[in-house]
């Protein structure tokens, strides 16, 4: 039986996270179908059809999928799931919100945030803030799985899968989205960035964060991230948070500036290819994971770094 991957999209384009989920799904070794549920989402369906390795795109276009509420999308996925052995979604805020509803309605377990597919029924997932990796085997008929995007490469483009319309499930009318305040940025998304410049409490305030880190990120073409302490203190919006309970990232280079390296922060970035840490405290735990550490006052060295790079 095929694998159903739930696409994350904005009706126009497919989010990169979906490409990572497709790569994970390919390891199962069955056909891959991608579901695009939205409203006026044909462009997104075409983008899904171009993902390499996809056998078919299912498109469900209806007004009650315009904001893709968890309740309505889960109802649709549940109805489709009868024909599939696996349902995959990226472990993004949207996937984590919606997919457990599908699992509960199918009366199956969900396997959250997998980092490896061992076989069609066996998966590896981090637990305890990444301090342990559990290998779990599902005995359920349908395997409902969320995928840690940082653990899988994005599937290449270049496919041309057929697109098939599927009927909508009923509108449950349970929640209404009344507003979205999305952070606008020209920078790459945290999840897809090659380089991330991340700042912590050591920056002192939001003004310092912007004046010191933005020029560095601009020069490197990097995304910006932050520790929980920096978000809680209001230096930057919530979607910048990297960590166990924020975003999990694994870029080529992660530059941690004024971040101590608490377990919860490390859980979100310690799989980065290369870690650079700048901290004035030589005892800071961030240096245990850093490939290159610079013990220095960030206010002195960050402008210098920006100037020399």
């Amino acid at each position, binding site marked *: 039986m095929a694998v159903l991957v739930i696409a994350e999209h904005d009706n126009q384009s497919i989010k990169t996270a979906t490409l990572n989920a497709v790569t994970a799904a390919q390891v199962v070794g069955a056909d891959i179908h991608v579901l695009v549920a939205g409203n006026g989402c044909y462009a997104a369906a075409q983008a899904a059809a171009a993902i390499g390795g996809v056998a078919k795109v299912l498109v469900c276009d209806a007004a009650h999928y315009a904001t893709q509420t*968890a*309740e309505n999308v889960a109802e649709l996925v549940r109805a489709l799931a009868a024909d599939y052995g696996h349902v995959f979604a990226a472990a*993004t*805020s*949207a996937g*984590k*919100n919606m997919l*457990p*509803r599908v*699992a*509960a*309605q199918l*009366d199956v*377990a*969900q396997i*959250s*945030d997998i980092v490896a597919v061992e076989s069609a029924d066996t998966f590896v997932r*981090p637990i*305890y803030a*990444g*301090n*342990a*990796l*559990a*290998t*779990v*085997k*599902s*005995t*359920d008929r349908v395997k409902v799985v969320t995928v840690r995007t940082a653990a899988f490469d994005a599937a290449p483009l270049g496919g041309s899968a057929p697109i098939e319309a599927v009927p909508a499930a009923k509108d449950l009318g*349970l*929640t*209404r*989205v*009344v*507003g*979205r305040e*999305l*952070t606008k940025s020209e920078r790459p998304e945290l*999840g897809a960035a090659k380089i991330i410049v991340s700042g912590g409490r050591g920056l002192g305030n939001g003004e310092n964060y912007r004046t010191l880190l933005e020029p560095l990120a601009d020069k490197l073409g990097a995304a910006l991230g932050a520790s*929980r302490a920096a*978000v*809680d203190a209001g230096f930057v*919006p*919530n*979607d910048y948070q990297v960590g*166990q*309970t924020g975003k999990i990232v694994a870029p080529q*280079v992660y530059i941690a500036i004024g971040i101590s390296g608490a*377990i919860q922060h490390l859980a979100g970035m310690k799989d980065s*290819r290369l870690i650079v840490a700048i901290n004035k405290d030589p005892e800071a735990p961030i240096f245990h*994971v*850093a*490939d*290159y*550490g*610079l013990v220095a006052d960030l206010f002195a*060295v960050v402008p210098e*770094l920006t100037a*020399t790079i």
Partner: protein
Amino acid sequence: MKILVPVKRVLDYNVKARVKADGSGMDLANVKMAMNPFDEIAVEEAVRLKEAGIATEVIAVSCGAAVCSETLRAAMAIGADRGILVDCGELSDAELQPLAVAKLLKAVCDTEAPELVICGKQAIDDDANQTGQMLAALMGWPQATFASKLSLDGRLATVTREIDGGLETLEMTLPAVVTTDLRLNEPRYATLPNIMKAKKKPLDSVKPAELGVDVAPRLAILKVAEPSRRSAGVLVPDVATLVDKLKNEAKVI
């Protein structure tokens, strides 16, 4: 309005978790346990709604071994009115999975009829991030996960959610499930008099069989291993050396 708050007993967030030598699970013997931090936020939110005259009763519920009654006492010390222990006996934490917990919570909801359930968004041990959503689905209720702001106007709930791109605001009609994110509130410290008072609050205990729930695990844990360690890096003396290494050694810029 009754509010139900599920609270989970987990390894304290300050403690580094260790894998058992035989790879069968986590070594939780003699380590400090505490209430899941997201559940403290959930209890705090419920208690504030009671203090504001919106909620009439806050009920904490925990599923697990008999020691989870400590977690219920901790919730009552913050201000929950009573506790329900779903005593799962010898079933280990790894064997009590979110679907089973959600079914137990549904059974409790069916008898207690709360209008609002406030869960943590994830438990910091297993990091599953499922239980609240599963409960909402089983009840056929709306859900608002990862909440950073909650306001109630009669039966209309308005919730601001932390999502990947920023914030989203949802409206829904109670009964509903809300799951807490870190910035919903800052939980109070339980004072000694409140800890003493909590000891006298009612605490009931039920068994999964009495609730008619099959809690058999659906996932078998084949092994638990430590992730590979990063090898220690080097300290560089200055910015020039750092830039040189980034360019010529790592070749990343």
